């Protein structure tokens, strides 16, 4: 169960350059560094809004996270205590990068009832988003394997088990 406050509502096609500009990417290998520069060009107030809460929810329109494959965009959100992104849709590369890092994404076609300041409770197991401020609850769909991966915080344990098989000479695939 994830709970958080909606601190930002974006429109369609927010790209990963918006989330973290390119010239920051090679200046550090520490994921926390990218939190410091999240949305520095696109939304310079983003960080201070997120800093006021322990858990933030970002809401957006279609295609959130499009563009560059930079995984630093995921770190930039996570290190601003973004617990969940709720958007109309997500493109594949960003979606996979969030799966790998356990940043929960929920695709929700109709987000019209959600406003800045609302307290949300995202129940992955039940597939519901409860708006505690407005007393409403809406279902969202997610593939079972993705739900398991988000709940596990990524796929690393599975990959490690596969690597064990390979190193032990048991399996090539």
């Amino acid at each position, binding site marked *: 169960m994830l709970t958080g406050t909606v601190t930002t509502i974006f429109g369609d096609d927010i790209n990963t*350059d918006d989330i973290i500009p390119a010239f920051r990417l090679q200046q550090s290998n520490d994921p926390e560094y990218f939190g410091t520069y999240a949305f520095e060009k*696109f939304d310079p107030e983003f960080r201070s809004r997120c800093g006021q809460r322990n858990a933030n929810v970002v809401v957006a329109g279609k295609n959130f996270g499009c*563009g560059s494959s930079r995984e630093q965009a995921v770190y930039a959100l996570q290190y601003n205590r973004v617990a969940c992104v709720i958007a109309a849709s997500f493109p594949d590369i960003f979606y996979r990068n969030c799966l790998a890092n356990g940043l929960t994404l929920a695709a929700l076609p109709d987000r019209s009832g959600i406003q800045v300041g609302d307290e949300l409770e995202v129940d992955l197991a039940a597939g519901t988003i409860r708006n505690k401020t407005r007393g409403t609850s809406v279902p969202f769909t997610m593939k079972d394997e993705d739900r398991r991966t988000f709940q596990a915080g990524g796929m690393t344990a599975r990959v490690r088990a596969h690597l064990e098989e390979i190193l032990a000479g048991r399996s090539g*695939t």
Partner: protein
Amino acid sequence: MGQTMVEKIVSRQVGRPVRSGELIERLPVGKLFFNDVIGPPAILTLQRLFGETFRRHGKPVRVFDPRRVFMLPDHSIPAYSVEVAEGVDLMESFGRECGFTVYREGDGIEHVVLIEDGHIVPWDIVLGTDSHTCTNGAMGALAFGVGTTDGAYAMATGHIYDFVVPETFQFELTGGFQRGVYAKDLILHIIGTVGAGGCSRRVAEFVGEGVRRMPMDARTTICNMAVEMSGRTGIMPTDETLLGYLKDRAQWPVEPVASDSDATFANRMTVDLSALEPMVAFPHKPANAVPFSRIPEMMAKSQAHSGPDLPPVTSDRITDGFVGACTNGRYDDLVEVAKVLKGNKVHKDVSLVVIPASRRVYERAMDEGILQVIIKAGANVESSNCGPCFGSHMGVLSRNAQMISSSNRNYQGRMGSRDARIFLGSPAMVAASAIEGRLADPRKYV
């Protein structure tokens, strides 16, 4: 019921027939490559996540198969900071330990060099830690971008996990381009038509007479921008032109692949190439593409619009031009630029940067006198790298800049200041605009 070429490629790789929508828990990868942005953190991630596992088996940390892994420093080289230089050092030292190829700084851009060197072939499954890995689909490979962690997983085991076989959006290209109209104009037209999310979760497959008549450089331009409509990747069937390109070049076995005529496609669209005119994408997204003749209309629309995806454009003046990037920095592109610039001068208020996309392209353009024409016209020619497209060096934009670029993205702040305006167009349009100091129609120069 037939299969799409995507379904065929995945089926062969997993050894059983698959359909789109199917989940593949472990999909083996044929080629895996990294640039200087993601290579260094991916190596560190590999060591952090799996170092202990390797040690327990008494083995050093290694990649799954050094013949299939490549690292190419291309984004920020020659290094603009100590951190970049040390990242390149890490790639080089890990490459030596593992025995995989690390290219030299200046050899060129990942999506150009591996194709030139014959490493990407039909039926391949290619992962690159860059969203423009889709470029490689022009070779008939299933090629897509991944992030650091998927890249590190693949380094360790040679697999990508929980891969959903994508559906295909088939674009049939008919006819041929008019003079002064190029592959770039076509793909901008398509992106403008379907929108930034118009090919979401689907592979963009390009087929038909229009593709068959197109040389390889133009094909890579089209596949390069599939991701700008959120395509999973772009792909093209094998034909005589591709087989000719791969002859004496391919480092791996070559076998043709194409979709079956009775395969199931999620969408289909036909585009008549002869009906297209030069296109220009307005800031801040490639999907803001309009035909050249509609620039005044689009300027008016931008001034009435509110929202960050289309800022007000009040002038068609140009301060900066860029020809290069994985989209349009190849030999055929430079030939067109030289045609436009020959006998002309770059406008006194314009900085034009031209970057051949690889060392091979650079050397050929030099040997054939193409670079002389470009340099004498007043352009700045730089060594092969991603250039200002990455926004970190080689022509970072000020707040007052209006840039026209042959690259693939014109996001806000992409090349420098958040207030700069970036337009996208063909290399010929960039050259024509650099001469006139305003958005210009290339048709009068070629």
